[in-house]
Structure formats: C-alpha cells, structure tokens
C-alpha cells in the first residue's frame, strides 16, 4: 500500500513517519482494521507520513523497509494487545504508542489482572480461574460444585484473554456450566468463573493519566443477559457522560486510575466497571488498546471531554517515546 500524502503538521507537532499496525490474526481483526483505518486518516490530516501495515508473516521485513519513527499499534486482542507486537518492536528499536510489554501482559490476562487488583485492595467480582489441564489432568471437575456454591448463580464464564464479547457465557445454573466452559476454552487455555454483578455497565477511558468522562453502555430492550447484544451496534446505546449519583463519577475515575497505574499502563487505556444496585463499584477488566472505531468508547469519552478524534490520535503519538526504548 502506498503512503498517504503528507500535509503540514499542526503547530507544535513535528511530522513523523508513523507505521500503523492493524489487522493481524486476532479474532478482533475486523475491528482493528476499522480502528487502524481511522487512525491513518487522522494521522494524515495531522501531517504525519503514514505507512499502514496489516500485520502478518512479513511484519519484520515491512517494518525494516518502512523504518518508521514510531509505530501506532491499532491492534486488539491476540498479538497486538498481549505484548507480543510490543516485544517485537522493542527488539527492532522502534518506539510505539500505548502501554509497554509488561502492562499489556498484565491487562490481557484477566486472571492475573484480577489477582493484582485483589492484592491492591481494588474491588473486583469474586472469581476462580482454571486452565484446561486442571480439568484434564487434575480432576478439577470434581471441585466445580464447590466453586459454584462459593460464587452463587448466576455466574459468568469467560476466557482469560479474550478482549471482546467472544466466548463470554452466562450460567444460570450448574447445568449450564460444562458447555460454557467448553466454549470459553475455545478461546484460551485459561478461563475465569466470576460472580455475576447485576448492575450498570460503565467504562472509564484514561488519556495521559487523566480519566475522561464515564461512558455507560445501556443494552436495548429486554436482553440484559445477552452479552452479544451489548456489543452489537444499535442493540446497545451509549451515554456519555453517564448520569451517575453524586460521588460515583469521582469514585469510578479514582478506581480506574488506580487500576491503570497498578497495571503500569502508559498513554491510554480503558477500564470497565460495574455499578451494582447498592451503589458499589467493581472493576471487571482493563483494556490496554481499546477500540478506536466510530462507535468505540474511548473516542466517545474523548469527544465528551472536548478532545476531537484527530487530537486524540495526535496526543497518543506525542506520548510515544521520542527515541527507541532501551
């Protein structure tokens, strides 16, 4: 693909040669291609020289040919968000946007992230986690009944590392659990059984250590337990800033920022929380590279804070190290 024509940069921003990494073999490939395409347009408008790369077997060669000053990682899920691509860029001495390897590893592994949160005293729904070998080799199935008793139904069963709604199942009773586990193990060798929190879905995006206005995702109609619906355009509506009781916004901001720092995130991230009927906030997970599409939450939150998409992309590039990491 040809580089997009460069135009004068905005005052203060030095035009840079930016490789936009997108696509890849993740199940969120499609979302990533949309995020990446939008980032490319914004970078071109800002006057940067853009080199789009659909990440595949030729990644290293293409990066060596393009010799970018910075790589904008617009990938979600496997490879892009789990530290793999970040590690490769470190080896190639190419500075990149967003969080470093360690933060990506911590955030992508929901089990690890939850253990860290528990240790730091950050509220997160009760959970148990297993890998496939526990069931296959250690007879963990016999412990299922005890787990179910400790968590109370309904419970949510999800793959440890899948970023989107894929593989997330809702178990109303013990009978639902085995099939839900089989489904979750389709995505990852480690799965999470988590107490279901009935409440409101909130997301706090963070840009450069500053929390942005809270976004609430409201599922349409009577589909509360349909996780699919939450991620389908038109089946979920988003409210930003979320209308929350006094003090809750501040609490959500504070919790999100604590998680962001705990995991060691850099430049930007999104933290997902639940607000239950008692007004208690719990943290579900953090996403080191949240979506950047037209309907994604980070751009919506930035918009609500008066930051345009172009400005958001510009800031993210500026926040990348100016020189290669050492």
């Amino acid at each position, binding site marked *: 693909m040809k580089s997009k024509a460069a135009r004068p940069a905005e005052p203060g921003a030095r035009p840079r040669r930016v490789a936009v990494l997108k696509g890849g073999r993740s*199940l969120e490939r499609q979302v990533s291609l949309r995020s990446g395409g939008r980032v490319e347009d914004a970078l071109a408008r800002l006057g940067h020289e853009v080199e789009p790369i659909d990440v595949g077997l030729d990644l290293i060669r293409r990066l060596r040919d393009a010799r970018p000053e910075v790589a904008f990682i617009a990938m979600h899920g496997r490879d892009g968000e789990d530290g793999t691509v970040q590690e490769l860029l470190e080896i190639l001495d190419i500075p990149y946007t967003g969080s470093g390897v360690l933060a990506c590893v911590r955030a992508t592994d929901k089990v690890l992230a939850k253990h860290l949160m528990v240790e730091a005293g950050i509220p997160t729904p009760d959970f148990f986690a297993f890998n*496939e070998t526990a069931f296959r080799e250690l007879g963990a199935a*016999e412990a299922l009944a005890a787990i179910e008793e400790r968590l109370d139904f309904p419970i949510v069963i999800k793959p440890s590392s899948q970023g989107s*709604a*894929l593989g997330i199942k809702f178990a109303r009773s013990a009978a639902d659990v*085995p099939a839900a586990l*089989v489904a979750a193990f*389709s995505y990852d060798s480690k799965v999470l059984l988590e107490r279901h929190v009935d409440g409101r879905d909130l997301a706090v995006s963070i840009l450069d250590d500053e929390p942005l206005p809270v976004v609430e995702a409201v599922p349409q109609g009577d589909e509360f337990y349909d996780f699919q619906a939450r*991620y*389908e355009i038109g089946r979920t509506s988003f409210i930003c800033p979320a209308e929350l009781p006094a003090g809750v916004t501040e609490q959500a901001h504070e919790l999100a920022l604590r998680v962001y720092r705990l995991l060691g995130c850099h430049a930007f991230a999104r933290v997902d929380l639940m607000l239950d009927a008692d007004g208690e906030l719990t943290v579900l997970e953090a996403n080191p590279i949240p979506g950047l599409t037209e309907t994604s939450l980070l751009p919506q939150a930035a918009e609500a804070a008066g930051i345009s998409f172009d400005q958001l992309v510009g800031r993210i590039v500026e926040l990348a190290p100016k020189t290669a990491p050492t």
Partner: protein
Amino acid sequence: MKSSAMRDMMAVTARPEVISLAGGLPDTSTFPPETFAAVAQRIATESCARALQYGPTEGLAETKDCIAEVMAAEGMPLDRDDMIVTTGGQQVIDLVAKTLIDPGDVVIAEGPTYPGAVPVFLAYQADVVQIEMDSAGMRVDLLEETLERLDREGRRPKFIYTVPTFQNPAGVTMSLSRRRRLVEIAHERELLVLEDNPYGLLRYEGDALPPLYALDRGVFVMYLGTFSKILSPGIRLGWVAAPPPVLEKINLGKQGTDLCTSTLSQLMVQAYFERGNWRDYVDSLTDIYRKRRDTMLDALAEHFPRQAEWTRPGGGLFIWATLPDFIDTTDLLARALRDNVAFVPGEGAFLDGRGRNAMRLNFSGSDEESIREGIRRIGEVVTEQVELYGTLTGKESPAAAAPAAEVVQMPTPAERARRAQ
C-alpha cells in the same frame, strides 16, 4: 441471525494460512484460460461497441437463448419472454423480496436456509418462518401445519423460499413425493414459491428429480437459475423465470436497481455457448467435485467423533455436520482458527438461534489434500471438546471415530433444539 462476533471471525478465515472450508466457492482455476481469451477476443472483434453499451432491462435475446438451453437440460423448456436475465442469482432473491415483501410479511424458508438469503429477507423486514428439514428436504407436513397455524392467525405468507436440490447449506435434496406435494399446496392455497436451483447440474450420482418449476409449469413457482456454478460466479449472471404478472414487477424493480445486467457478461456467455458444448465444462467440474466430496466424506468418517452426524449430498457444494448440543460452533470456530482451519457456524443459516451446534463444510473450493487436512484438524478440535465435556460432566465419552459406512441423516428436532446459552 449472523452475529457480529461471527462476522468478525469470518474476516480471519480469509487469511492465506487458513484452510477455509467456509467458502461457497466454485473452483474457477479449472476454467481453461484459452477459452476465456478466445471468447474475449471474439467480443472485441465482433461486438465491441455493443458489449460496452447498456442493454435491455430484461436481458439480451442471445443470452436468453443460452439460458433456454440450460433450462432445457434440466427439463424445463422456456420462452424468451418468460425470463429476465439478472446480475447473479442473488439479485433474484433481492428483486423477488423487493417486489413482494411489505414489512411484517411472512416468508417461509427451510431451516437451515441459504445464509445469503437471510440478510435480504431481513432488509425488507420479513418475518421469516423456518421449516425443519430431514434427509428428504423440507418437511412438507410441517409446512402444512405451519400454514394452518398462520391461517388461523390471519397471516398469509408472501412466498415459500426453497433450495430443493443439493440444498445450501444442508446438502440434502427434496424427495419427488414432497416436491409434488409442495406444488399441490402452492396450487391449493395459491401461494408463490421461489425455487432457488444453483446446483441442479452439479450431480455426482443418481438421476435428476424434476424441478418444482417443471412440475408446476410456471403457475405459482418462480425459478432462480445462475451461471455461477456451471460457468463462473465472476460474470454475475443469473435469471428468473416467473408468472407474467410477477415478472413484470420484477422488471420494474430491476430498472430501479441497475437498469440492466452487464452486457459484456451476457455477450461472454453467448460467445462461450457458441464456441462449444457448455456441458463439457460442467462435466469436468462434476468429476472434480465428486472426488472432493468423496474425500471429505471419507475424512469425516475417519476424523470426526462418533457423536457427530453429517449429510451425504448427491451433488452441490456443501456438507452439513451436526455436533453434540453442548458444542457451540461459533466458539468452536475460534478454536479451529488457532489451528488455521475454518467452516461456517450453523447459526448463520437460522434466524431464531438454532443451528448453534451445526456447521457447513464446503468441498468444492479446496483441493483434496487441503480437504483431508482441514477435516482432520476440525475433527481434532471437536474430539477435544467432546472429551473435555465428558471430563467436566464426569461422563467419560470416548470419542471414537464413526464407522465409515454409516450414512447420516439430518438431525432430529430435539437435537437441534436451541441451547440454553
């Protein structure tokens, strides 16, 4: 309904390292390039200006003569005036829906139905009612029950959509007695039927059954044909034969949609038909696809666990496999993609959440080695999940391979019952 999760996953199936049994593609690499060159050369020399010009909405007379040849080969003599040339068969589904459906109207389809028809019916806001199938195609007895029920509710379906021969995705063929009964029902109740027949000439064994259109003689049956599977999907050429009042409305609809079907494509078909016997290429495809079907059936018997069932199509492009109901094939696809192999999850062929434990497998678009390897990999992940489920439920169920000779029927309604989650 095809979920966004599934759409996202289908995007990954197109990557080059993936053995994709997910497509519905004919193998166009089998078409002789010299034939293409000769046809193109002839159009350039003899009818360049015409090929580059608009044409009549209903299609060129020469192309209609070629279509009449194909129709005759399937036992349906047809006059030029009784057909419209369309931009692929898909346009027929769209034009029929556009012409006949008002929001909320009932359309009857098979369950599972052609996944490509689903978004069309939804776009025109039809209420799609799906009728179960078994190894002899649509359960016409259940169709009658459904029609009775709809009658009592004061609802009259606009039409019945069916792929009676080598159905996509199920790979089954409607029996002669059911074909006769379906046409009778159409006459008794004055109901239109849209017969979609892209695969009728891709027959690998046995004798052809008469199409519904031949049994009905074009009174209530609308017929959809296409060159996609017997010549090329890239030329985007199909046709519709229908009762005159319907055909007139379709013609009006097509004017608004695209004025006319590509003149260049139509002249290519004409030049191709004049150059030699079009059936020779169909015969060569049939030989290739028969071997691929046999390869896939053998591989399924060898690699799929005994808890799985699949159809044994006598033609067409697809096999439909049904797994134990604790396996969700959309999730299974995620696992299969880690091993670089893909199929179409069954949920895309239903509008009501059924089909979640089924999959469509295409055998025409991959060579025999890829089919063997692809089925081996899918079989491995299915076996893995069957064993894991056994471990989780404490009911060890050794996933032994099915005996090779087993001929598998379509799943029973109970087996296809929607999973709780």
